[in-house]
């Protein structure tokens, strides 16, 4: 089953996303910020990274930049789920918070397929 890494600082949102995606059959890992995410990515190569932009310690932009700078991580699809969609780096798949789960799941599938 495809593995998805959730990077989200809001614990409620993180838990709901984990539960939702687990229920959808994905193998879900989670991280509270960019540093934790990079620690996971050191050993895992998920099918998709769902990430927030505004996070403490290491934010989403820096995480995207770090992944882009790594040959292996550069190929992993990403989906930005943020309350500030207009601030996402150009060319990234992005959906706005708050979001319906239907729309979200559609975006997840589309991102993995790409």
């Amino acid at each position, binding site marked *: 089953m495809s593995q998805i890494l959730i990077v989200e600082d*809001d614990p409620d949102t993180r838990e709901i996303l984990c539960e*939702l995606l687990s229920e959808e059959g994905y193998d879900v890992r989670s991280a509270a910020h960019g540093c934790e995410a990079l620690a996971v990515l050191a050993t895992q190569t998920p099918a998709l990274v769902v990430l927030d932009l505004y996070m403490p310690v290491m934010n989403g932009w820096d995480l995207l930049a770090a992944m882009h700078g790594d040959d292996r991580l550069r190929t992993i699809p990403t989906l930005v789920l943020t309350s500030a969609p*207009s601030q996402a780096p150009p060319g990234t798949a992005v959906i706005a918070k*708050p979001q*319906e789960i*239907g729309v979200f799941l559609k975006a997840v599938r589309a991102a993995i397929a790409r």
Partner: protein
Amino acid sequence: MPENLLDPCADSVLPSIWIADDSPLEAQLIVHALGPNYRTQIFSDGSSLLERIVRTDDRPKVLLLDWVMPDISGEEVCHFLRAAPETASLPIILVTASRISVDDVVAGLSAGADDYVSKPFAPEELRARVEAILRAQRLRDLMQRQSERLALTALLAKRLMTAGPSVTAVLDILCSTLVPAVGDAGLVWSEELGLARPGFAALAHRKPEAEARLRRLLLTGSGPIPGVNLTGMASQILRFVSRSESEAVIPPALRPYMDEFAISSLILLPLRDRSGVRGTLLMWREGGRESFAADDLALLETCLDYCALSLENAQLYAAEQRMHARLDATLDQFPVGVLVADEQGRTCLSNQMSRELLGTTVESGGHLSQLGQGGQFTRPTGELYALGEMPIERALAGEVVRGEELIVRWPGGALRTLRASGTPVVSQAGMRLGGVAAFEDISEQKIAAREREQLAQFQSQFLGILGHDLRNPLNAITMATGLLARRAGPDDTRLIGRIAASSDRMRRMIDQLLDLTQARLGGGIPLTTQPVNLGEVIRNVIDELQTAHPGRRFDIVLEPVPVEVWDQGRLEQVLSNVINNAVVYGRADQAVRVRLFVEGSEIICEVHNENQEGREIPPELLATLFEPFRRGRNEHQRSHGLGLGLFIAKEIVAAHHGQIEVRSSAKGGTTFRIILPIVQVPALPPSPTGGVT
């Protein structure tokens, strides 16, 4: 020394000689021997001579005294005359008999006689002795006049020193010093010396009652002397004249004064300085006094030169004082404190504001080292200024200080922030003369800047809350609700739907509040632009509304319009708002009409609906329809939103440099017009034509 003073003909009157002799024959012989060049008077005895001589001012130049007379002898007359101060120096020639002894001569000369002649004498001898005496006397008189004049000039110079900057004082001193010494009356008159009253500037008369009379007379006229242009006369230099001469020269208007005061002789002199004639001095003698002489004129000219010098000084001094006063007054108007110090660090100029900002220690004459006594001066870091480190002190030392901030703390604890600049004052020769500093109170600006900063910080925090912080929990609610809805049994579906609908409404309100905040505080709604085909946007919006309101009809005519670079999502928001309003408020049995067309240089989208009976927008609401927090026409719709929809629509259109307008009437229906300017005209895209759906 004028030569003519030694010439007996220089005086208009002949020298007077008194003769005392008890023999009328002897007296006549003497008169005859003297010849026609003297005025003679004969006294037959000593007592009548003495009686006369103490009562008159018109004393003789020489006295010829017979040594042997019956009642009072010549020797006694001599003693008497020498004892009285008025006659102590009267020249006396003893006339003695031929049998005169040496003892008599010695006794006579001891008694005070100046010379002697023994009878019989040759007329030439008598005349030669008289002339010798007169010559000696003239020389003595001249010496005395010269020394008197020197003393007078010195006195005048001394008094002028005390006049200070006052022009009137200078002229008063001139008159009051010269008149008693030289003439009987005098006045100085000038039109242009800056005196308050045109007329004479100074006036003096030897006799107080005559001065009062003269003053009254002059005051009644318009000038010093009505009808006489004194300045004009002065520039001609009318020198001294005797009474008889004056009548031929003096203008008729002056003649009444000549009679009133019995003026016998007058001098009219210009008061000149380097810039020309500044005024006129008129001085006269009255009654039987002798006429002005050439040396009087010379004396007055010298005195006037002194006076002109003093006037120049007085005027320079007064001009400097005026300039100082003007400078002070001007500087006091400055909202900036100005402080000028000399090279010793003494304050030489400080304006009102500098005293307010720096304390009274900067008053003129104070020393910069006292600055710290008023308040405590620190740098913005709180560090105290060391001695000599204040901007003005550094300016004195040659440094240019620009816009340095410093904080002054007053004894009461009040704090002011000042911005100080300073620059050294250097002479043309490069010598350091001092320094000048300017102080500006920027406390208010500082406070305002801090407030602006706080407000900006608050705005960005508020925008952050609206844009980010509120959305995270809302996202959790929305997603959790979606998850619950998937797992819920039929009983829970309705309630879960309520949660979903409410959280969706909250999302919309948060979106609107964010838009409002950005429009009002953040400088406008930000746009994300791309090429937009407005016809397609309208069609999509209407498709969505048609799905939501299957029963409603839309009458659409979309003419081809240029593709413009706009924010598609934001324009969708505007059109959705306006067309949805038409659907909600318009008559359900009538089509909502939507038109898109080009008019001039503008793209126009019109959305029209017919009104239900009495459901048009009332005129008072029309005026404020696009303002924030307006409510819709249906009061029961209040709960649906914040009343920000049309305000945000207007802001979005404004961000596209367009306008939104509305018309509404019971019969004509309600029409919104969205007007957007055409900026660029690219090739027209193939556009769908309109039709009725």
